[in-house]
């Protein structure tokens, strides 16, 4: 997987760095989703546990 985007020179010279690779976009969305799901599951599980104690 690429981290960066490069421009491919038509003259065959070395490629120039032009920015971040957008292939990474889904991973950043996934990271957010994972934190949200883990937190929601953790909260649901621990609140059920205190319900039982009550």
């Amino acid at each position, binding site marked *: 997987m690429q981290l*960066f985007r490069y421009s491919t020179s038509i003259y065959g010279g070395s490629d120039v760095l032009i920015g971040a690779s957008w292939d990474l976009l889904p991973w950043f969305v996934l990271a957010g989703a994972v934190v949200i799901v883990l937190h929601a599951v953790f909260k649901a599980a621990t609140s059920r546990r205190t319900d039982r104690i009550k």
Partner: protein
Amino acid sequence: MAVTQANISEAGAASDRVTRHLLADRLYHWLMAACVLTLLATAFLPIIGVKFEWLGLHWMTGVALSALVLIHIVRAVIWQDFWAMMIDRADLRNAWRRFAQTFGRKGAAPGKPGKYNVLQKLYHAGIAVLVLSIIATGLLMLLKIDTPLWRRNPYVLADYQWGWIYVVHGFAAMGLITMVMIHIYFALRPDEWRLTRSMFRGWMTRREFEEHHDRARWAADER
């Protein structure tokens, strides 16, 4: 230790309210949020295939965000309690106690937070780093485009230098997606609804204040 002023509203019907966010700060938060969401949309919709003329709206909103953030920094340093948003020893101690308690270890119970808890402060620090880097690089990138006010002049920097500027702008932009998703999730959760409500109405009830905050770390100004 710094103590934030939580002003109690004027006497009468509203006397059991503790002010959390002044109107100026609520306006700042919502205008800033509108700018960030617009910048995310104008930047990423074209990338995921929704093509439109994004650049004009993007850079103009970017300039507006830069101005808002500048005003916010001046306000925070001069008129607000700057230290209310900084992580201190008590936060670290409480965070450790909460961690130990959650994972079943015995020990002292964590104390209450001041105005913000340690996770909110961490979130704010993360957003500050991302937004300041995206503003610094974005303002430079204005030199790469034609606008009604100036012509492009990319020759002030070498190609590889522009490359790194675009890399920082791009990574900070993707990082903001993760951060904003998590932030909106917490704001929508019902457990801390008093905080969400306070960003609309400005206040929380005195009972909520007593229950969830340490008055020594976020002192109510009883005038």
